[in-house]
C-alpha cells in the first residue's frame, strides 16, 4: 500500500485578483521507505507539492493522502498533531532554533510535540547524534555550526520522532556541492537504516542521479517519473 497518494491535485494561488495555478492535476503514489525527489525549475510547483504532502497547505481540488489520512481535511490543531506524529521536515535554511543547542534542537520534537519520557529522549537523541556524526558537537548552538553540520542536526531532528515520511525542501541549496552530496548520502543511509521515506525537492540535476524515484515537474504538471534503475 502506498504511503503517499496524490489524486488529481490542483493548487491555485491568488495574486491580487489574478489566479496563478501552481499545480495542475498532479497524481502520483509513493511507496514506504522510498527515496524520492521532485526536480524542476524554480516555480514548477515542487515546494507547493511538499507543503501539501506535509499538510502545511490544502489543495484547491483533488485528494492528498498520507499514511491513509486525507491531509487536506485536517484543521490547524489536527494538522499539527498529524505532522508531529508522521512527518519530519528538513528546510533549505536549516531552521534550527537558535537558542537551543544541537542536542536540544534534536530533542525538541520529542519534548514539545511528542512528550516522550526523559530517558527515552536521551537514548534517541544520542543515537541520532552519533548516526549523523554530530555527537562531539552536541552542546553547540546553531551559530557555532557550519552549514553542513546544521543540516545534519536538521536531519536528526526530522528523524528523531520516527516519522513515516521526511520532507526536505531544497535541503542542499545552501550547501557547497561536496557537502550537498554528503547530506544526500546521509539521508539515504538514514532511509536504509530506519526505513523512513524521504521526499525532497531540488533543482540540482546532479543530485537527481542519487535518488531512486524521480518526479520531474514543470509549470505545475508532472512531466515524467523515473525509477532509479531506469
Amino acid at each position, binding site marked *: 500500500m502506498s504511503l503517499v497518494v496524490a489524486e488529481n491535485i490542483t493548487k491555485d494561488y491568488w495574486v491580487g485578483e489574478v489566479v496563478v495555478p501552481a499545480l495542475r492535476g498532479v497524481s502520483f503514489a509513493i511507496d514506504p521507505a522510498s527515496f524520492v525527489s521532485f526536480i524542476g525549475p524554480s516555480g514548477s510547483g515542487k515546494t507547493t507539492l511538499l*507543503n501539501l504532502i*506535509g499538510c*502545511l*497547505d490544502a489543495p484547491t481540488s483533488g485528494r492528498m493522502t498520507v499514511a491513509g489520512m486525507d491531509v487536506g481535511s485536517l484543521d*490547524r*490543531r489536527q494538522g*499539527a*498533531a*498529524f*505532522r*508531529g*506524529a508522521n*512527518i519530519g*521536515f528538513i*528546510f533549505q*535554511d536549516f*531552521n534550527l*532554533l*537558535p*537558542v*537551543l543547542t544541537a542536542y536540544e534542537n534534536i530533542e*525538541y*520534537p520529542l*519534548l*514539545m*510535540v511528542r512528550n516522550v519520557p526523559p530517558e527515552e529522549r536521551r537514548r534517541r537523541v544520542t543515537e541520532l547524534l552519533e548516526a549523523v556524526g554530530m555527537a562531539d558537537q552536541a552542546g553547540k548552538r546553531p551559530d557555532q555550526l557550519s552549514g553542513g553540520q546544521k543540516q545534519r542536526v536538521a536531519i536528526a*531532528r526530522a528523524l528523531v*520522532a520516527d516519522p513515516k515520511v521526511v520532507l526536505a525542501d531544497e535541503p542542499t541549496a545552501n550547501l557547497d556541492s561536496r557537502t550537498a552530496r554528503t547530506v544526500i548520502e546521509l539521508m539515504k543511509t538514514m532511509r536504509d537504516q530506519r526505513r523512513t521515506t524521504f521526499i525532497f525537492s531540488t533543482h540540482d540535476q546532479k543530485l537527481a542521479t542519487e535518488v531512486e524515484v524521480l518526479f520531474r515537474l514543470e509549470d505545475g504538471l508532472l512531466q515524467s517519473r523515473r525509477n532509479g534503475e531506469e
Partner: protein
Amino acid sequence: MTDLYKIALRNLLRYKRRTLLTASLITVGVVFVLIFVAVSGSFKAMMIGQITDSMMGHIQIHKKGYVASIDNLPLNLNLKSQAFARMDEILRNRKDIEASSPRLKFGGLFSNFAESTNVRLNGVYPEREFKTVPLLTSRIIEGKKTIGKGEILIPALLAKGMKVKVGDPVVIVATNQDGSVNGKQFVVAGILEGVTGPGGRDGYIHIEDAAELLRMPALEISEIAIRLKDFDRLQPVFQEITKQMEAEFRKDDKFPLEIHTWEGLSPFFNIARMLDVMTFFIKLMLVALVLISVLNVMIMAVYERIREIGTMAAIGTPPGKILSLFMLEGLSLGVLGALIGGAVGFALLSVLNLSHITFDFGLQKGLLLRASVNPMDFVAIALIVILVSVVASLEPAFKASRMEPIVALRHV
C-alpha cells in the same frame, strides 16, 4: 512547562539589551510606585495618627445635632448623666476598645487679670483622656504632664499672646446653660503645642472643674472620644457600636445620638482620600508603562521570529505551546522587573529612612518621615506588574500561535 520556560528565558537573553531596557523601564515604574506608596502612605498614617492620637480619638459619640453646631460648642446639646452612664457601661464592656474619654466642651473668656480673650476648653478626666489620646502628653511642651483640679492646660498661642507662663493664675469666665455667667480661677499647669485640625488649639481642665464652672447640678457630656485597640478594625467596631447604641437609645424611630469615626469629623480625611486617588493614578501609570513596554517587546519578538514560529508549527508544536512560550516570555519580563524594582525600591526606602528627612504639617514642625511599605502592598504591586505583563503578551502570543506555518516559513 519547565522546558518551555527555559526556552522562553533563553529567548529573552538572546536580545539582552532590549530585555534589559524593558526590565529597567518596569523596574523604574515599580520603584517609583513603591516610593510613592511608602511616602504617601507613611505621611497619611502619621497624619491620621497625629489627629486621632493627639485630640480626636478614633470614634466620637455626640447628641444628635451637636456636630453641626460644634463650632459654637452648644451646652444645650449635651448628653445627660444617665444616658452617659449607660453609654460608658456599654463601651467599658467592649473588649476592642482601648479607652474612652467623656468631654465637656465649652467656650469661655480667658483672663490674666490684665487682659482677656476667648478660649475653647475641654473638661476631661485626665487619666481617661491621656489613655484615649496618648499623644496629648507629648504636646505639653512646658509644665506638668497631667491636669489636677484647679489647673489648666493652655495652648501655646494663647500663652504667648496673653504672656502667661506655667504657674501663673488665670481666670476663666463662662456662660452657663441658663445664660448666667460664672468665673473660676485656675493655675496654668502646662502649655500645649497647637496641632492642625478641629480641637487643635483647645485648652484642658478637669471635668469636675468644668461642671462646677458651668454650674451643672449633674454632670453633662458634650462628647465621648473612643480609642480602639486595633485601628484597622475601625469600620466593623464603628458599625457594632452604632448598632449597640441604636438598640439602647432608639425610641419611636428616633435615634438621639450621632456617632462618627474620625473620617467624618476631620477635614484631613479628604486629603487622605486625595492621596489614595493619587496612589491609584500612579498605579494606573505603572500599568500603562508595563503594558506598553511589554506589548512593544513582545510584538517585536513575534515579528522577528516569524520563521522560527513557522518552524515550530511545522514540526508539530501545538498552538497552545507556542502561545505559552510567548506568554512565559512576557511573564518573565514582568517578574524580572517586579523583583529588581522591589529590591531597588526597598533599598532606596532604607536610604530615605536613614536620611532622617523631616517635614512640617500645619503647626507641627519637624515630623520625621518614616517611609515604609506594607509587604502586602509590594505583593499587590508585583502582582499587578506580572498580570499586566501577561495580558500585554496575550495578543502577540495569540498571533504567534495562530500563524499559518506555510505563511510564516515564507516570511523573509
